[in-house]
């Protein structure tokens, strides 16, 4: 099966909605599980990994939730396909770098994805748009309970699910949400927020998880501790913290609108100017400017423009997605040209942002 034909087109994928999705892009939970009788993937030899995959893959594919799934060994996927999966946040960069024995199984609507032989034998994840951690936990726990009947998990009553890294021991759970926080970044409050979130034992990471930069003002917040606490308690704790971050972001935006409207208009106007007129633009610059554009749509500076357009641009201007839409192989320089062409083309029908914030006293009848 061709991965490109299987994946949901970006226009459709970004149209999905969820609660608080202006700020919370996705809610995600992954569970780490291992087989009892086979060494962990990082220590085992190639035959061990292949053996593990031979046990796990058919069991996963036979789950009712995975009906009509896409399943493939990583060594059968082209580098571009793997990069495409990383850009969609369906597999980790670590997993994309793995070879023989590693595989992925993805369900039809891309809400469930199994990484086989990543750091652990099984890394299963469920994701939904917006803030829906409880729903995501319900989904993934149900799938996990079905799978445990088919494969023998490494588990002890004392230490729970055994994982390759002791940091994941116990529940093997990582609950995370991807947040768009331009308000807190512009208001220069983000470091304060990151510090207090860290103090609560939660981690804040960049766009592509561990060790990545917070491009486009996108941050991932997740739990770090996995032992000595129930899954429900972890989900609840994260939920509370996320509600507070949402509130802080909303406040930061409101304050910027009130106290620094010119700064905000300037940022958004310049972002639109550059994005809709550039001829050479890097992926990094694009993401950062698109973040401003999205904020502009959120605060009503682009009447009639749907935020899904920005979300879609965010996805299709990334390297593998650009390459995928091109017939010839692109180098980094050519991608920067193509990216700019694509942005100019897609933004051509978008009128420039309002010169004043809607609802502000001077705005008068101008917004109409």
């Amino acid at each position, binding site marked *: 099966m061709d991965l490109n034909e299987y994946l949901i087109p970006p226009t459709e994928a970004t149209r999905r909605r969820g609660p608080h999705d202006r700020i919370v892009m996705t809610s995600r939970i992954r569970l780490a599980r*291992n*087989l*009892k009788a*086979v*060494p*962990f993937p*990082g*220590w*085992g030899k190639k035959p061990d990994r292949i053996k593990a995959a031979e046990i796990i893959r058919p069991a996963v594919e036979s789950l009712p939730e995975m009906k009509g799934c896409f399943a493939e060994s990583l060594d059968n996927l082209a580098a571009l396909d793997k990069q495409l999966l990383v850009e969609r946040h369906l597999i980790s960069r670590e997993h994309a770098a793995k070879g023989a024995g590693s595989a992925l199984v993805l369900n039809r609507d891309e809400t469930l994805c199994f990484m086989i032989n990543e*750091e652990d034998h099984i890394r299963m994840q469920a994701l939904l748009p917006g803030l829906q951690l409880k729903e995501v936990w319900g989904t993934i*726990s149900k799938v*996990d*309970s079905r799978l*445990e*009947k088919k494969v023998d*998990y*490494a*588990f*002890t*009553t*004392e*230490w*729970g*699910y*055994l994982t*390759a*890294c*002791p*940091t994941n*021991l*116990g*529940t093997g*759970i990582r609950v995370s949400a991807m947040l768009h926080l331009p308000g807190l970044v512009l208001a220069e409050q983000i470091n304060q927020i990151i510090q207090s979130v860290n103090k609560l*034992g939660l981690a804040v*990471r*960049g766009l592509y998880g*561990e*060790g*990545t*930069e*917070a491009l486009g003002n996108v941050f991932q917040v997740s739990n*770090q*501790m*996995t*032992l*000595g*606490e*129930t*899954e429900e308690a972890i989900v609840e704790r994260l939920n509370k913290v996320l509600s507070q971050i949402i509130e802080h972001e909303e406040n930061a935006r409101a304050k910027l609108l009130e106290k620094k409207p010119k700064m905000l208009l300037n940022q958004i106007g310049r972002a639109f100017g550059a994005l809709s007129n550039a001829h050479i633009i890097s992926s990094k610059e694009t993401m950062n400017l698109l973040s401003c554009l999205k904020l502009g749509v959120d605060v009503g500076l682009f009447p009639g423009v749907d935020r899904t357009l920005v979300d879609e641009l965010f996805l299709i201007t990334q390297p593998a997605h650009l390459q995928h839409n091109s017939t010839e192989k692109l180098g980094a320089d050519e991608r920067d040209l193509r990216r700019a062409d694509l942005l100019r083309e897609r933004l051509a029908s978008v009128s420039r942002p309002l010169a004043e914030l809607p609802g502000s006293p001077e705005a008068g009848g101008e917004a109409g």
Partner: protein
Amino acid sequence: MLCGLCKKKEATVHLTQIAGDKIQKVDLCEECAKEKGVNDPAGFSLADMLLGLGASQEMEEAAGGADLSCPSCGFTQADFKKTGRLGCADCYQTFAEGLESLLKSMHKGTRHIGKVPAGLRRTQDLQKRLSDLEGQLENAIKTENFEQAALLRDDIKSTRKDLEELASA
């Protein structure tokens, strides 16, 4: 002081992490620090590195200086120091003593209180029921309540049978 990683060059980068009531220190040479991305705040996780260094120190102490290796997969403490990952499920048994204090510094507790696979949960329930019944039986015999004791004995018998069936399933 020598670098805690390569143990060759002079350590010039000194890092300290306080987690809970534990203070952990790492001393690195310029090169190792660079390699581990110490200068890049986004890419560097002190916790990850301490995990390798600190844990293996504790494991060495727990083992009384002997270099333990896992009988199932051959994984050693030195390997853990290098990777911060364990070799197989049995490693948790092999390195249990050293891991205990590491887990304490890393997690909320050192005992799992979350989800339990359904099959195992049933076993646990039955085991608990069995020990409850045995206690009641003892009491019944002590108080010479033999009628009750006979009933309890039957219950125990059937619970044992359920347990055996579960184990063989």
